[in-house]
């Protein structure tokens, strides 16, 4: 009897360990199974785009930099917003913190995809290359916005939280070098064609292709002053098949736009783009409208004012709002996607790269391509300085309200002070061109230093 009992007890004890190995929840996937097949591995990468669009990443970068810069006027009474608009940011600003948080969240997911597909042996090689290319591009894009907004930032290239929790900032040069490296790998892994959710050839431009990686690379080359590289690579994009400027400015941001290089597709129910849903005014603005000075700076003939901005008159006055995206909330059908990269920027990049190298005629030609579509007369015989100035002016109106392009270019060209000082007066100081490293981050990671002025 004793022995039987002992036997039973021992057996039960031994099987306890095994008994506790419960299967994973059936409504979730474990990281290993996610990267076990092409479909779910792809779904992990697509999740990043879906979240970027759902969370309004592009909109928020546009809005905040526009408030800090010269594009927007603030109507909110919340101190986080007024501080942005008056360049009085504190390290405790929640809006800046949200941007930081979301960008690094996507970086984590890119790293998770890279590590996941790296470990997996079950993926089709083509899909594996596509996903690695996309993840590297997306990681580069996030680091690009981080370095543009915050200056030196940590380069996060793995998921290990113990490393990432104590990571120090890298210099801007290092961050740009990291981005260039990722993009070079990505452009070699990615194919020129676009892919569908099942990795079949697709017409919609909602996953990065080879030219998407190149298009971001040219921006960095401009930043790094690699004019020849910028010219060559931008040229490759411009001449690649499938890309042309839409003749009708009102069609540029449609989902079928031929000037789109990479768009985030509409994912939120009853929304098209996050920007359309939030910029378009139906009453007196409570958060953002276009700054009157910006509206006044439009040249008479510029068709983009008509096509890409709009106004509303309420009892409190007239207010202008961005109208690149024309579909607001409660949309019944989807016609517009959020633009990440598009052709006109590549043309302007090549124009600048050429102008910088003294190729003034070619630079003028590129500039005129963009001007002509906007209904502006062609320019000719400009000096290098005048050409570069004209390119910057064109950039302002062509790429206004597009993911901080205005703010980032003012910084890049060193003109930010001269532009903003007259507008902002004593609120402006040179240190304001970098956002503060969020206070909470510095409390949690003592290795993070703060930008000057905060």
């Amino acid at each position, binding site marked *: 009897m004793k022995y039987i009992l002992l036997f039973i007890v021992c057996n039960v004890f031994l099987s306890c360990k095994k008994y506790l190995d419960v299967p994973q929840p059936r409504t979730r996937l474990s990281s290993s199974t996610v990267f076990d097949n092409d479909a*779910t591995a792809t779904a992990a990468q697509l999740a990043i785009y879906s979240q970027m669009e759902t969370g309004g990443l592009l909109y928020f970068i546009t809005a905040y930099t526009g408030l800090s810069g010269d594009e927007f006027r603030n109507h909110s009474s919340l101190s986080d917003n007024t501080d942005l608009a008056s360049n009085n940011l504190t390290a405790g600003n929640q809006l800046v*913190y949200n941007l930081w948080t979301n960008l690094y969240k996507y970086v984590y997911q890119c790293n998770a995809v890279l590590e996941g597909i790296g470990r997996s042996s079950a993926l089709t090689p083509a899909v594996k290359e596509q996903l690695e290319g996309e993840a590297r591009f997306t990681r580069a894009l996030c680091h690009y916005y981080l370095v543009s907004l915050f200056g030196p930032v940590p380069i996060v290239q793995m998921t290990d939280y113990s490393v990432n929790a104590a990571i120090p900032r890298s210099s801007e040069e290092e961050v740009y070098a990291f981005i260039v490296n990722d993009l070079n790998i990505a452009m070699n892994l990615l194919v020129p064609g676009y892919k569908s959710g099942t990795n079949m050839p697709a017409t919609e431009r*909602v996953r990065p292709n080879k030219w998407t990686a190149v298009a971001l690379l040219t921006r960095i080359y401009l930043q790094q002053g690699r004019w020849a590289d910028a010219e060559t690579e931008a040229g490759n994009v411009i001449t690649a098949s499938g890309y042309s400027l839409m003749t009708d400015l009102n069609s540029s941001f449609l989902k079928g736009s031929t000037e789109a290089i990479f768009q985030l597709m509409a994912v939120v129910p009853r929304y098209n783009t996050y920007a359309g849903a939030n910029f378009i005014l139906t009453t007196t603005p409570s958060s953002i409208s276009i700054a009157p000075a910006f509206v006044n700076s439009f040249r008479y003939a510029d068709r983009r004012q008509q096509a890409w901005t709009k106004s509303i008159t309420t009892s409190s006055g007239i207010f202008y709002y961005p109208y690149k995206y024309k579909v607001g909330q409660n949309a019944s059908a989807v016609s517009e996607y959020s633009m990440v990269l598009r052709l006109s920027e590549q043309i302007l990049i090549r124009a600048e790269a050429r102008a910088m190298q003294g190729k003034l005629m070619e630079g003028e030609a590129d500039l005129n391509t963009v001007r002509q579509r906007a209904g502006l007369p062609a320019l000719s015989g400009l000096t290098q300085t005048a050409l570069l100035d004209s390119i910057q002016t064109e950039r302002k109106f062509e790429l206004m309200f597009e993911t901080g392009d205005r703010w980032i270019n003012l910084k890049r060209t060193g003109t930010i002070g001269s532009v903003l000082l007259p507008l902002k007066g004593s609120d402006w100081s040179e240190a304001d061109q970098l956002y503060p490293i969020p206070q909470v981050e510095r409390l949690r*990671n003592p290795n993070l230093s703060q930008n000057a002025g905060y």
Partner: protein
Amino acid sequence: MLLKSKLYARITGRLLLLLFLILSLPGRGQSFTLSVKRETLGKVFLQIEQQSEFRFIYTEELLAQSGPVSFTVRNASLDSVLRLCFLNQPLTYTTEGKHIIVRKLIEKPAAITRELRGRVVNEKGEAMAGVTIRIKNSDLATGSNTRGEFFFPEAPKSVTLIISGAEMEQQEIEAGLQPFVLITTITKLGLLDETMVIAYGKTTKRVSTGSVGRVSKDEISKQPVSNPMLALSGRISGLQITQTSGAPGSQVLVQLRGRNSLANGNDPLFIIDGIPFPSVTLNNSTGGAATYSSPFDNINPADIESIEVLKDADATAIYGSRGANGVILITTKKPVQGKTTLSFRAYAGAGTITRRMDLLSTPDYIAMRQEAFANDGVTPTNANAPDLKLWDSTRYTDWQKELIGKTVSQQDVNIGLSGGNESTQFLLGAGYHKETTVFPGNFSSEKIGGSLSLNHQSNDRRFMVSFSGSYLVNSNTLPKEDISRRITLAPNAPALYLPSGALNWENSTWINPLSILERSFTNHTEVFSSHLTLSYKVFTGLQLKISSGFTHQYLREHGITPQRSFNPATVSVSSATFGHTDLQTLITEPQISYQYQRKLHTIEAVAGITIQQTDQQNLQQTGTGYSSDGLLYSIQAAATVTTSVEADTRYRYTGQFGRIGYHYDKKYLATITIRRDGSSRYGSANRFANFYSAGIGWVFSRETWLQQQDILTFGKLRLSAGRSGNDQIGDYRYLDLYAPYPNAYQSVTPFYPTQLYNPRYSWEQVNKKELGIDLGFFKDRLQVTANYYHNITSNQLIQYPLPATTGFLGILKNLPATIRNTGVELELTGFLVQQPKKSWNVSFNLSIPRNCLMKFDGLASSSYASIYQIGLPLSIVKRFGFKEVAAATGAYTFFDYDNNGQLASPQDEQRIINGAQRYFGGMQQSVKLGKISFSFLLQFVRQPYVQNYLIRFSRPGSLGNQPSDVLNRWRKPGDITDIQRFSVSNAAANLAYNYFQFSDAAFSDASYIRLRNLYVEYDLQSTPLKRAGVKKFVVFLQGQNLLTLTSYKGLDPETQTFLPPVKMITAGVQLNF
């Protein structure tokens, strides 16, 4: 067997020794022949001296004490002659050689012993085991065995026995010289010896080393409540019961001895007949009346025999990883042997909300609005003042009466049938409960359930099987919103209905509150539970048992927001929510228990294994865009369907436990418990943990030095310490999981990583210590229990804050943060009058809990920084500090803690408010006078800082009614008051009011004394009825929450900003055949 033969060997040994002693008395060889009749001893001695050479040595004084002797002997030995001489004389003798020395007899404790056997039975003639039998004026004592028998091998000849034991009166029995005594015990009324259910066993307060509170079915049945947890309010020290809303079925919070965990569950472990009962709501989102449904509402209080609350380490450590927050054991009624009895108990009654607020009348309200417009220099328009410009300014509606003033009706019926013979007993029960609400419309909660319980034992009583099964359906429909929030409507707001009977929207100038009631939420819950226990008594004392249970809880939710709940003039989207929760728990616990009694030593040991599995599936979907309100019950008819909750989890749990209890003479008590637990909620490296406890007790009243008085009749000191754990952390948190993201991309459902995973986190541990004393005075008619506990929770499992560069804001990690819960509990019970026809009992309990966050590394950088502060309780909130109403501007002003000239959150939210209950308790009196008995319970709670009505009211002066306190407002510069100026659109005043709502002014004293329960019963039993077969016939009145004394600024101090509880009066009858 071994034991018995040893005993026999010893007894025989002693008998032989006795024989040998007798035989070895010195033989004198010589014989005597004497015949004396009433002769003095002196003369007899002379005759002996004449017949032999023996000489007596004595004094005349000695012999003077002796009496005359008479006997006749022939050829007798000296010894027999001497024995006859000294028989019944106060003298004795010794022989030294030829001398016989006569001495005075010195009384010694009865030198000669004998055997004494006996049996102890109760009034019904059933054997009573474990009864202590003590011989008066000696050190001898023993205990009765399972057949009720006891044995003293060496009892003095004439003895008085003192009988004591569980559930019996102590009594003294003159056993005289009888060799066998049959003792009938007298069952005792009182708490010390009441059986208490504890983990895997039973005990009594007399011998328990742990801290256990108990509420019996008698107390539960006095209360007209649907949720048995509400029946515990104010009755058990250390147990805090909070009803969150007066809506039927709404959540009841149960907390024992404070919050132990920063981030995880703080619920006690609930066990019904050995099966864990989930304490977490089954709802997937807030349900009816904006609260969650309470799972305990799915228990019929009439099925409950008793509820035991296990508090300290000694009582809870056997539940190991789940015992950190205490354990609540619910024991259901079990069948008993006896004639088949049908019992019927029913009651019905009505009720209204406990408390109302004093709001402005129409004239005062209109005056307030006009003053506000005048103050701000704004002209009232149709748009900003429909109440002044469009609505009838003389109209008055008491919105409290209209919206939450309906009378609740309640009906409750329970029928039971029980009976059985010695081997098989059964109990069949059925219950029905219905309760309507205070809201207008047809909202109600309806419960119907049945149960069956069977016991069987084999003829030799070694094998026992018991089964119980119950099924309950609870259907509860409430408005989605708690419309008690709408009592702030302007008193002159329009009529609810148009003359046509349709809802009145008054040209879209208001939201008709009745439209809100069109949005309903139904919880339909079905609970099935079954329990099977098999046990086999291998031999007396050793029992093998296997106890298994299965519970299935199913909830179907359905919430609707129909088109008709919106103003027809506006564009609106109808929607419906569909939810399902399916929860199944299977548990089996093989156990072995051993009981050993030998004289005064009692050992009770139990060991066992727990194997448990819980599966849970949740799904909640919302359909929007219905073309017709008639289709709101179809998900297919919705234009868009979104899934908000989808989960499928499995939780497995194993445990091995053992407990050994020892007591000596019910004087020295000790218990040791160990448990090893494994839980699937932890990663493979940390799945197992050990928990343990030790408890000791000293019943000092049994020490001889306390036997000489009869004031203190019972006194016990208890000390326990141990460790238990908390695994209420949710499932799978150690896994690297990807979840589907709701917004599809390229028609693919994306998957995103949900968390940083940490496979190494481990258990939160609570180290509990308790010092307790139990005293009984005046034959235990006054009983006092006092406890001091000191619990430290460490290894807090929290979302450890991480920089966002990690991709997430935190990771589940153990932090050496510690929380201390200390407290004092006091319980007094007095049996003031105890007579068959008259009785008067009083009981009182008081709990003074204290909580403190002792340590939290990195608090400042964590998301808890604005919530907690080291050295302060977890119940604090930080708010703006209200300074005064500025005499010049009439606006509220606040303390600028950082002195930067502007008010900002969180920098200036530095006023710390402790919302904790400082002390709480209850006082109950029950009186029986012949056929009438009544009892009442007064509950008291001291909570000086609780959120008051401010959060529910908009700015004074704006559209909407106000508490009448606002009449005391600032009017002109120089006024000193605490209510700011009336204002409609003054920016400074608006901002100030927003801060005011988030300042310490929004907290006020919500202490209360409540007549929680009143019960009156009249016994209608009579001889003719008895003859007709009626066993019991009583009628009763019950009152719940009848009276509340409080100065709370708001509706009710318990539910605070939610719908107040109902004060209910019911009348009922109980009839047993």
